[in-house]
């Protein structure tokens, strides 16, 4: 038994006790939150406070960590290796060294060799942490306490390595030298260890235990079972307070989620509002929320990138103090900059639910305070009394189809049985540009002999805009009214070209009793082409790039059908820098176009820049919002065409001699 070894084991014990004290302090702060709740895939909320759920979460923890978290972390292989070495070596080495208190082990050279190996791995991990941050720290990483992390890691793991080596080497080196080696190591380890443990309270080490707790109590457990789990939680409109005003209004497991943030900044590099210089940085937002749970909280400790063009706020808070406002932590403009594209959620290795938090905060602003951005209030007012965002007549929704056959489902003879598809037209139908897309879609349905019908003047807005702007009351009214209308007719499936309507009808209406099979037009046209109901010609050698709508790709996981369909058209398909589930938003979601928060650039301009960079001549879109946003980009740029329009061209090309199309 080496004396420094025993002392080291005791040091670890003391550090563990200190850590436990700091963890307990944080846990007490979490208790200021409301009852922990889980959200099902369709947005129903249930209490998480039950022994079964806790045990299920604990059981699932290793798999959630090793599979789901690793899946996200592994997108950056350097970070994955760094974390495996640093965290694995540190925890493994420390636990082993603690076992050195058992005399048999403490005397064994082999044992100390294993400890040395673990600390050597951790030291290598610590070195990787440092190399990533030095000499120049990437903008997405936080400084301050985070910048000191590699130093503490090196001191603690290097010290541990020295102590362990002092236990391995006795016969090979003089006793006095080894003893001084060991004591030096112990001193280093003590310094580094105290530094690390203090970072549990406020600093990078907090994510270690908060992250584990977050994975156990994750508010959307469905995400670990392969569900998309993207429907917003249905709000109980009879609750005493609607939405979240203070940290205490958030369920405990959401507060834990905020603490799980390691400030890696992947969200900020993915955020379209951040890229456009609007005052939103998802990382900073989560940090502000996490900081506010302490009494007399300030936002001063944050050392990452700020909100771009940040509006001044007092930066003070507390568990029962408001979060949003110029006199609080978060400026309202920050809240309204979000396009609810979920890119931050998709990128977050700790599986934090940023969009849920933003919508909860928006709900309070809208439902309790009526504090909406200037231009967001009129559409909600029109929705309340005209069921349409611009107060246009519902009967005018089908005007785009002048001259086409557009059968009304109400006029459908009963003997024809259920319609094969009910075509949900959506908001885009009122727009001249998107009307062209819908005309193409209707023409294709007629050509393929699909038995379809529309609701016509009985179709109300799906409520997507109201819900994203926090007006849950209007959303629920519209959802119930639409469900009642749909219940009167018989159809097999709902077909829509609007991913926002698709998401509402497919996922969000379920919490209100509306269960439908909803298919997006890209998937439906793909089916028609596969089954030979549509004959496609080739569209020449045009180069096309596909822009994934957030509400189709990230929200519903449909990224293959549109690509398959484009490939059937004989086009050369190029992928943008960001595509599929990691695609970038067009800026049209979440009510961002009506909130209209000022930034430096426009999101669609950035996205169009990425499309132009591929060298494609056409940007294929599959959503009315994307179509409107990208068509709004000025200057020289690729053409914007909906996939339905391209398919119609291909169908018409099938009749023409080749090489005449898209020459």
């Amino acid at each position: 038994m080496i004396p420094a070894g025993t002392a080291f084991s005791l040091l670890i014990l003391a550090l563990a006790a200190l850590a436990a004290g700091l963890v307990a302090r944080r846990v007490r702060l979490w208790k200021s939150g409301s009852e922990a709740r889980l959200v099902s895939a369709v947005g129903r909320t249930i209490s998480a406070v039950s022994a079964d759920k806790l045990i299920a979460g604990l059981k699932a923890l290793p798999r959630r960590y090793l599979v789901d978290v690793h899946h996200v972390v592994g997108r950056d292989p350097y970070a994955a290796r760094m974390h495996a070495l640093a965290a694995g070596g540190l925890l493994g080495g420390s636990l082993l060294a603690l076992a050195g208190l058992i005399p048999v082990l403490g005397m064994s050279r082999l044992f100390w060799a294993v400890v040395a190996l673990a600390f050597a791995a951790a030291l290598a991990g610590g070195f990787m942490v440092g190399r990533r941050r030095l000499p120049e720290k990437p903008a997405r990483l936080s400084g301050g306490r985070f910048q000191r992390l590699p130093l503490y890691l090196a001191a603690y793991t290097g010290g541990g390595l020295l102590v362990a080596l002092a236990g391995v080497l006795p016969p090979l080196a003089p006793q006095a030298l080894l003893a001084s080696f060991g004591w030096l190591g112990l001193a280093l380890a003590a310094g580094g260890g105290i530094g690390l443990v203090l970072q549990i309270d406020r600093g990078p080490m907090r994510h270690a235990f908060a992250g584990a707790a977050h994975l156990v109590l994750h508010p959307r457990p469905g995400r670990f079972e392969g569900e998309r789990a993207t429907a917003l939680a249905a709000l109980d409109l009879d609750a005493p307070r609607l939405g979240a005003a203070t940290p205490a209004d958030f369920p405990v497991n959401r507060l834990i989620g905020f603490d799980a943030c390691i400030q890696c900044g992947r969200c900020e590099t993915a955020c379209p509002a951040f890229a456009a210089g609007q005052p939103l940085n998802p990382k900073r937002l989560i940090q502000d929320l996490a900081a506010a749970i302490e009494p007399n909280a300030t936002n001063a400790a944050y050392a990452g990138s700020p909100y771009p063009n940040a509006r001044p706020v007092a930066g003070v808070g507390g568990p029962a103090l408001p979060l949003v406002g110029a006199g609080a932590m978060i400026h309202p403009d920050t809240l309204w900059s979000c396009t609810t594209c979920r890119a931050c959620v998709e990128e977050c290795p700790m599986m934090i639910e940023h969009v849920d938090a933003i919508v909860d905060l928006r709900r309070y602003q809208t439902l309790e305070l009526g504090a909406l951005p200037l231009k967001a209030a009129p559409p909600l007012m029109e929705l309340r009394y005209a069921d349409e965002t611009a107060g246009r007549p519902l009967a005018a929704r089908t005007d785009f189809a002048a001259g086409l056959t557009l059968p009304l489902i109400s006029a459908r003879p009963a003997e024809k049985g259920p319609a094969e598809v009910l075509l949900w037209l959506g908001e885009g139908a009122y727009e001249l540009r998107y009307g062209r897309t819908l005309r193409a879609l209707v023409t294709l349905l007629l050509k393929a002999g699909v038995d379809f019908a529309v609701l016509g003047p009985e179709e109300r807005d799906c409520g997507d805009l109201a819900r994203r702007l926090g007006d849950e009351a209007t959303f629920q009214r519209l959802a119930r009214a639409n469900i009642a209308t749909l219940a009167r007719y018989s159809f097999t499936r709902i077909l829509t070209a609007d991913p926002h309507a698709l998401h509402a009808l497919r996922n969000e209406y379920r919490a209100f009793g509306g269960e439908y099979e909803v298919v997006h037009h890209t998937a439906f046209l793909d089916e028609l082409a596969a089954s030979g109901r549509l004959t496609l010609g080739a569209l020449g050698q045009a180069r096309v790039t596909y822009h994934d709508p957030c509400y189709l790709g990230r929200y519903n996981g449909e990224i293959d059908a549109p690509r398959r369909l484009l490939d059937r058209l004989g086009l050369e398909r190029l992928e943008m820098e960001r595509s599929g589930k990691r695609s970038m938003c067009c800026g049209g979601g979440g009510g961002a176009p009506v909130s209209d928060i000022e930034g430096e650039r426009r999101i669609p301009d950035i996205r169009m820049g990425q499309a132009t960079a591929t060298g494609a001549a056409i940007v294929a879109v599959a959503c009315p919002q994307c179509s409107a946003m990208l068509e709004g980009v000025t200057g020289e740029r690729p053409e914007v065409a909906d996939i339905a329009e391209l398919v119609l061209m291909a169908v018409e090309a099938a009749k023409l001699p080749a090489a005449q199309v898209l020459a």
Partner: protein
Amino acid sequence: MKIVVLLSAGRHRVSGQPAPVPVELQALRLAVELGGEVTVLHAGPELGALADALGHGVGRLIHRVIADGDDPLPSLMAALTDNPPDLILAGRSGQGGEDAGLLPYSLARALGRPILADAAGLSAGPEAGTLAVEQALPRGARRRVVLRLPAIVTVHPAAPAPLPFAFAAMRRGVIESAPGISAPQAVEVEERPYRPRPKLIAKAAAGASAAERLKAATQAAGGGGTLLVDPSPEEAARAILAHLAALGLRRDG
């Protein structure tokens, strides 16, 4: 200051569904921003969508229940004389009902109070008991008028947009319902086919160039006369007397 805002049973301009009248919600905003004790008042068979006014910044709604087709004036009078307010605000006309825009005038006559039309902004007057009103004139012109309270003011659509609706505020709001005064009115309606009237074009610009017609259509109507900027009181008095004399309105001159 006690302010009562009158609400009428409106309908949405396109959908025809029952809805508050936007200009009355604008009046409500002016009242809320002016400060004081604000209530809204409606006399009619049922509230329906009018309860939504409680989501636009006011906490108390008084409803006088009368039969469909009854004249609301006696009920409103009764509600307003119980606890007389300093200021009564109304929209310049309703939307969806009979909507002659006459009710505020009948009310003013019945209450014996002055009425000022088309306010686009309100603020406290220079002395206690007065109100500074920014009055909307045609073609975007504004006139500032100081009014002694109590009074009735109707609000113009050029006033600031209504405060955004807050669902929870509506839920919290208090509705005080009481029976109104039955006042059946004999409705004598004559139906005639619509006859489009000839459009009047400003005489000066008729036949002139497009630019001149545009100028005539957009320029504030200048009624001639003399413009004195910051005149001395004597000078101003002389100018007024001269003007009255020119119009032949001076008896002693």
